[in-house]
């Protein structure tokens, strides 16, 4: 007599499980779409930067083509050498982000710890300056900078970037400091620390992820800025986004070089983001203390 082995019958799916599986698929689908939305333009830009002019402007997009480094080579040779633009961007964005973090940490700490009337209004006023449209502030700032001789200088750009980075840094850092229990500082004070020592040795290390997050975000904002750079920079201080705009000319757009510059602009910020992604995620979710 033969024995018939049958597979164990699956327990029927409860409606709750089926619904949960469906939701998971929807989430996966949405994430895939978001990924496509984000990555396709970047990939297109990267591919185009390795194409020659004919391939870039071909009526149908070419996925298979003979790659060339000409676009990158052309960026670093000839009268519009990209070197100075990169250097200006590094200096202006780097110094501005660093200053924003330093000053933002001090001001944010003050905001988080001070007990005073109207503190919430003050905090809102600080961040509201970040919300002002650039057009509203650019003329008075231009006139002030002109008076101070700061137009077309790296210090001028640093200050310009600070106008939008500092409020953001103060706001973000104050949220991180608010997460640190005041009892820790009180213990440090009882142990003989001065206020500054308690801040420097106890509180600041606990907000490391906040500092990194703030620095990276400020760096990205300043690095990508075009609107302020157009107004405040000049022959001695033009940055990468300005170099990119110069390729849009009256008689055409140099798509090959434009996408090469785009790649040069995007890649360092992506690498910086990846290098500190652990802190960035912790920081952006404001889990500064518990997440560490």
């Amino acid at each position, binding site marked *: 007599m033969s024995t018939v082995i049958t597979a164990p019958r699956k327990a029927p799916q409860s409606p709750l499980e089926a619904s949960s599986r469906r939701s998971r698929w929807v989430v996966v689908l949405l994430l895939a779409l978001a990924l496509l939305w984000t990555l396709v333009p970047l990939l297109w830009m990267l591919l185009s930067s390795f194409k020659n002019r004919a391939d870039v402007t071909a009526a149908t997009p070419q996925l298979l083509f003979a790659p060339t480094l000409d676009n990158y080579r052309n960026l670093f040779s000839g*009268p519009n050498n990209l070197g100075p633009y990169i250097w200006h961007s590094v200096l202006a964005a780097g110094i501005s982000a660093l200053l924003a973090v330093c000053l933002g940490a001090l001001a944010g700490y003050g905001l988080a710890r001070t007990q005073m009337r109207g503190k919430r209004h003050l905090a809102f006023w600080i961040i509201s300056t970040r919300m002002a449209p650039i057009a509203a502030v650019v*003329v008075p700032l231009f006139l002030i900078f*002109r008076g*101070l001789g700061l137009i077309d200088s790296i210090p001028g750009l640093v200050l310009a970037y600070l106008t939008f980075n500092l409020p953001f840094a103060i706001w973000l850092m104050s949220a991180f400091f608010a997460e640190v229990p005041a009892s820790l500082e009180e213990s440090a004070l009882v142990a003989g620390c001065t206020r500054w020592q308690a801040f420097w040795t106890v509180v600041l290390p606990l907000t490391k992820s906040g500092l990194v997050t703030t620095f990276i975000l400020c760096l990205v904002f300043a690095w990508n800025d075009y609107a302020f750079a157009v107004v405040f920079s*000049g022959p001695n201080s033009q940055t990468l986004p300005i170099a990119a705009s*110069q390729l849009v000319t*009256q*008689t055409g757009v140099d798509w090959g070089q434009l996408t090469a510059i785009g790649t040069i602009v995007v890649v360092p910020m992506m690498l910086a983001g990846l290098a500190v992604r652990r802190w960035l995620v912790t920081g952006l979710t404001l889990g500064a203390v518990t997440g560490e």
Partner: protein
Amino acid sequence: MDRPSRRDVLRGALAAGAALTLGGCGSRGDAPRTAGGDQWRQYQGTTLNFISENTAPTAAIAADIRPFTDLTGIDVRIVTLELTALVQRVALDLASGRAQYQVIYADPYQVLAPYQRGLVDLRTLQADANLPDLPGGVADFIPAQLDAAGRFVDRGAVYALPYDAPTMIWQYRRDLFDKYRGRMAADLGFDPTPGGDRTWEEYFRMAEWFNKNATSDVRYGTGHQARQHDSLMNDFSNVLWSYGGTYFDDGKEVGRLGSRDPGPCRLDSDAAIAGAEFYQRLLGIADPASKTWDWDGVGAAFRAGRLAMCPNWHEFAASNEQVLPGKVGYAALPKGPAGTANMYGGTGVAISANTLPNERGAAWLFLVWSTSPQTQLANLKSKAGGGTPTRTSVYELPEVRAAEQRPSQMPNMLTAAAVRQAWQADRIGLRPKIPMWNECNTAIFTQLSRMLTGGASPEEAMRSIKSRVDQIVARGWVA
């Protein structure tokens, strides 16, 4: 020593801030000047800043600025920006009372008309015996261009010297016209050779013929720069004018010398509406991608072999010749019931009125040099771009004449016969030179775009533009 109090620190910071402010606000020194001797070297050691759109002549000058520096000892730093950004930067620079940019690429419609009071009347420099004169004098510039790019309202004053001269002409695949001429003539009943004697109605029929009969060679007969952008106004205006439409009364004068108060907009006239109706019909058979193209898009599509013909700026010839050598022909645009018009998009170079006296002199040297016949000839030959000359004498040079025929070392010169026709006083297309043009232009291309996408009939679009333009003009201009 006592530690400084918080009050002391604050006081010190305030004092430092005040010192910095006062130092910064101090008077700025003029450029040095060497008295006597060589006119061209009197400002040696000066640095000039030139702000320009990234145009062909500026690219050529940037690549070959050395002769000027050797001649004058003046260092020129060139900043190129996209036009909108340039206008914003120039407006701020003029308003600040101190010139960071001594030399300005003065677009007639976005810089010269609105900010003419911030520019130097160049006659004062031309009359200065200590400064070199313009070789060939002002009269050597093509007259219509000198008025359009250099003057504003006042017939005498010159605020800018014509520097570049892009003009819209008819660009077509000569090889395809050669191939199909006989069949086209038989089918259409007229000689299809492109030229200023053709009508827009014939252009339409030729485009339609290519759509039906030459699909193995090109996908569409015609393509246009009909994106919601300045390009759409340019493309449409050629048709509008040839149908007898006009933006304002006395449109030719408003285009040539400009006006601060042009009166009511006339786009609601029967002629303007007829022009808009034809334009809508033409775009109906054009490459559908036209509605996404500016001049660069249509130029790229033409070079990619997608189109048999298109209206576009003549300075695209150099790129055409690189990709389709010998296969492209150039002609003046077709005519309509009221004549013909070829949109002119030239620009001048000007000097900021905020310059100090010696800076102004040094800037004049640059203007004289950069618009001189020998520099324009060098630009024509430049590998960095070039543009086309704005001086009559350059077009008469034997080597430039020779370059009008293939094989040409100056491919933009292959358009010379077409642009010579296009620049005639009765054919040149000059958009209104009014201070508030930028805003009017936005209203125009926005409504035209609505018309092309089916959101408004030609009549509704024209009436809507008229109404908006009248509102904008009624506000006036105070700068």
